[in-house]
């Protein structure tokens, strides 16, 4: 347990509660990456060619679930990811803004990780969840394809909701999950003790370095303890454990409960950065629970616009987005709700379609991130600014000035006609 989680520094439990008394605005961010591409025709209202308001437009069928949330929505067309060579999937390159491919290790950290570092600290700075076929989720419950904390440092995503529940809510769990939580806690405590005892007589220079190893266990065990101390608070947010966890009928049962766990980790304040990989960054995936019999690679070979299968998948995604928004809206924060301080970035790890050059990379934003992003509109860009510039924009909105994200000036000269944030996106 703990894969996919980068553990933060020990903090007081108060930090966990997204408190309105905090001096720092508790912003949060969600990346939702659907695989196989995001065709612009499945999200841009019919006939809309230029940047304009969405107020009077009708959203296309695949994203119709967002119709009531139009005033929070910002559809962006015309970013590019040519340099990420997406083809089948840009893998780490989608969130990193660099070349990626199957089997290619991350060449730098990804935007979700970078944001998790600059947003106000939480107990668990970053959580990644991945949705796939049930076979893949059970045999490979953790996988790393999308997020990274640095070059060659992949971050694992969780796909087994039982494991994830245990990590987040083990302290308030019952039954089997409780037993596993206790056994695991016992092992981790003893590992910490053994690790500490073997560090006592090290040379001074090594003590500091080895100390970080021991400290790591203290963090893990400390996180568990701290989650334990705020059990009452967590109970309010923890989703109920039902048969979908242990006996899923379809993979979508696990997708749903994984989403619930992701949402709970946001609403309870455990984390403020959530990355969701629907299709886990690869070119397969299954949604049999939606009545889609075909699975995997063939889904990517289909044209998405007007395709009943893709309408179902996209609608399912959008219902998930709505669930995230509704949940965040239900939690008061400051003078408004959590959603007021949140940005949801919905896109694909593979630009606009499966076999793509990455020349167009459509994105939908939901929320205004504490009033920094424009909403209720469609923005058509000229295809000259890379995905990296969107990430630089978000970093700027999070308070970090950034000319180019993961792009040196030489590459930027070729792939970015602008510098810094995309002004069209910001208020």
């Amino acid at each position: 347990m703990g894969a996919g989680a980068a553990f933060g520094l020990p903090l007081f439990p108060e930090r966990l509660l997204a408190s309105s008394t905090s001096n720092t605005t508790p912003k949060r961010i969600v990346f939702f990456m659907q695989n196989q591409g995001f065709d612009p025709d499945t999200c841009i209202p019919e006939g809309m060619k230029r940047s304009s308001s969405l107020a009077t437009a009708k959203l296309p069928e695949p994203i119709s679930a967002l119709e009531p949330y139009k005033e929070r929505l910002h559809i962006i067309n015309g970013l590019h990811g040519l340099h990420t060579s997406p083809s089948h999937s840009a893998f780490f390159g989608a969130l990193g803004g660099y070349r990626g491919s199957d089997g290619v290790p991350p060449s730098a950290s990804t935007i979700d990780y970078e944001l998790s570092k600059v947003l106000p600290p939480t107990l668990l700075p970053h959580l990644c969840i991945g949705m796939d076929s049930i076979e893949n989720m059970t045999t490979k419950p953790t996988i790393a394809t999308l997020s990274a904390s640095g070059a060659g440092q992949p971050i694992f995503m969780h796909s087994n909701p039982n494991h994830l529940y245990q990590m987040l809510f083990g302290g308030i769990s019952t039954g089997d999950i409780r037993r596993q939580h206790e056994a695991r806690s016992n092992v981790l405590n003893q590992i910490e003790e053994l690790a500490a005892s073997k560090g006592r007589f090290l040379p001074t220079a090594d003590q500091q370095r080895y100390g970080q190893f021991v400290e790591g266990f203290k963090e893990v065990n400390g996180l568990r303890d701290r989650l334990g101390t705020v059990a009452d608070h967590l109970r309010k947010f923890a989703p109920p454990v039902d048969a979908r966890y242990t006996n899923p009928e379809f993979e979508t049962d696990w997708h749903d409960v994984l989403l619930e766990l992701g949402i709970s980790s946001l609403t309870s304040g455990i984390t403020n950065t959530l990355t969701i990989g629907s299709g886990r960054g690869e070119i397969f995936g299954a949604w049999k629970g939606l009545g889609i019999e075909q699975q995997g690679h063939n889904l990517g070979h289909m044209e998405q616009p007007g395709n009943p299968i893709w309408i179902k998948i996209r609608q399912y995604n959008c219902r998930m987005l709505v669930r995230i928004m509704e949940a965040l809206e239900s939690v008061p924060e400051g003078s408004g709700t959590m959603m007021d301080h949140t940005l949801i970035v919905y896109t694909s790890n593979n630009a606009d379609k499966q076999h793509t050059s990455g020349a167009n990379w459509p994105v939908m934003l939901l929320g205004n991130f504490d009033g920094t992003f424009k909403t209720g509109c469609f923005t058509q860009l000229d295809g000259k600014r890379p995905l990296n510039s969107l990430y630089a924009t978000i970093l700027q909105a999070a308070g970090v000035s950034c000319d180019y994200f993961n792009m040196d000036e030489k590459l930027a000269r070729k792939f970015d006609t602008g510098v810094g944030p995309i002004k069209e996106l910001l208020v």
Partner: protein
Amino acid sequence: MIKVGVILGIALLCSFLSVARGESYTPGQKVLKDFDSFAQSFLANHCVDCHGESEPEGNLSLHDLGPVDEVNAAIWRSVWAQVTLKEMPPKEMDQPNVIERLQFSDGIVGELTHVMSDKGGFHDHLDPNKGNYVDHDLLFGSLPDGIKLIPTSSPARIWRLTPQEHITRLNELINTEPEYDPEKPGLRTHGDVVPTNHGGELKLYFGTDRIIKWQGGTVAYATAVKSLPAVLSSARAHGLENYPDFYTVNSAEATQILDVADDIIRYMAYGPLSIAQPYQITDDPNSIADKMKGDIRGLPTSLVYSTKIVRPLTPVYDLMQAEGVGDHLLRAAVDDLFEALTFRPPTNQESDDYLVIVKQSIEKLGKEEGATLGLSAIFLDRDALFRPELVETGQPDSFGRIMLQDWELGLAINHALRYIKPDEELRAAIIEGRMRTRDDVKREVVRMLADDSIRKPRILRFFRDYFDYDLGGYICKDSKALSETGVSNRGQSHYNAMFDATASTDRLIELILRDDKDVLRQLLTTDKVVATKDDNVYFGKRRSKAETAASVAAAKKAAEEMALIEAAELEAWLKANPGKEPPKPQKKKQETVNHNITEADLSGPDIYARVSRRSFGNGSMKPERILATVPESQRLGILTHPSWLVSHSDAMDNHAILRGRWIRERLLGGGIPDVPITVDAMLPDEPQNTLRERMRVTKETYCWTCHQKMDPLGLPFEMFNHAGLYRETELDKPVDTTGEIIDSGDPAIDGAVANAIEMIEKLAESKRVEQVFIRHAFRFWMGRNETLNDAPVLQNAYQAYKESGGSMNALLTSLLTSDAFLYRTKP
């Protein structure tokens, strides 16, 4: 240049003669003087004339620098680099004597270390990239009076595993690699490192040795098969990547290792059944056709595993197979797993500790879940992630040094060559108390070096670190710029070719090591290449515009002539068969001719290179290679192979500065100070100009002081384009391949060169170049930079190398039996 060398030599001699009378200096021992007043007088005598209050050189005033503190630390750091490298005072000025300079340098390090101790520390002098800051002539020449060396040793320490070591160690638990086959010595075998996959990612694969069928193509296989990426991080790409003090294991890594452990233990216990359905295990895939219906590509259920058990069956397997949980089974599983992960048997205390953890977990969760969780704890034992050299039991000698012994010594020797645990002979020697003396070490080292079946991946790792030829596949190329080089820019083909090229260069180095004669010279000047088919392109020549046009015209003419012939044949047929319908012409296979290049005609005997297990279906890397001869007068040695050239290039072009820096540091032993933060290190964006022309900006006085050490050494490689193809023109003009070796430290090789080949020929003849190679080997195997106290070790190693006719084995034996390797000092 020769004149300058002579003058320098005389200057050096004079300074030796003027060593402060009666004063002695021992490297590594604290300067007894009051550093502040010593430093102030040094600055006043040697620096302030130019770096004074008014109009100071380089806009740097040192007259009121003051004692080292956290505010002026950056300036002192720069002063340290300039004075240590003998860049300052300038050569035409009066020089401090040798001891004075060494004391000043040591003093700054001491002060910076102290001042920065709670601000991230000061580590410059410990960085392998600054190892050359120690004066080469003092290491290999005679020392001036007054310098007194003490017997050397290395610090007691723990050394974290590299990602490669860790993955290879874990791989031993779940995969059985083939035994060494003397008939096919290049094939990957037991004891070799787990190589990176088709995309350059280091991963641990589950069950690939049993997969006999899968549905779908390359990506479908890659998705369906279970694999885990390396968890431990490695932050360095260039140069020596792994000193003991570089890395630790952070909390995210530790928790991920616990997850990995769970997967591994389950596979050890149940094999493919831990990741597959029982019906998927059959030798007759047709018999389960009914279950493999429909599109299941990319799913784990699309794989068929053979019934033959190939993974190692260990006490973990016995434990999980047995009924119940008998103590002896539990302890056997704990002890065996402990040794597999730490390479030594547990102490009684360790065995008991883990037994308790496993028992408690079983009590809580039942046998299967509990044993898996409890045993996972061993994967996080200190010694499963760090290798200790702590000399906790030995007695110090009169210099405070303690010799490694028993397990620590045995594992140090093992680690010097291997990634897997000690073989039976070494293990027996350790246990029987025959791992305590220098002769013991020599016996084992000589034995292991002589036995090809004992794979020694760490030697190859040294050459990767030293040459940096393994980075080509990670250099992201601009698609258009890549296409202009003449190679294919389709999909991943270039990157795949580069990963293949790395494996090929690995193999070429192994072949040179097998002969073990004049190893460095051979590496620099071999005319051999281990090649794939793609290498006919990569070792080919990029045609000039005129040549390309001529090739296109010739092809067009040939096609026209062929059309005429075919028309004439048709006419003749119709004449001979009046009124009949002529047979339809056979569909011709479209020939894809790359007019941009003249392919090399590489041919030679079949050999093999070590590549990863199947990772990408039919698109996985293949081991088949040939041993060919490079095109004459176009290539010489591995610095002219695309693997090295592309590793030292960037997205758009060659990287002459990086190449020059490599030659300066790794062959000539020179040091380059860090780029000052005031420098905007960008070449102008002028697509109409060559790289050489764009590099004119480095010739400004401020830049040239450093760039003259690099640029003239890197520009001779302009005879190749940035995909590594030979070329005679650049931007439609004859390419300028000239360069110069300036102030190398070996006057015999200084001077202008016409191209890279002439430069390499000169370098390969230099004694200094050989000595610098020895210095790098020392750093790699000792895990630290050399100090003056290591001079005898370096000189002995060089002598061993020379006297043996350039034998790597002799060099290694010398280094591994040296005091620097055998002795540790506690701080």
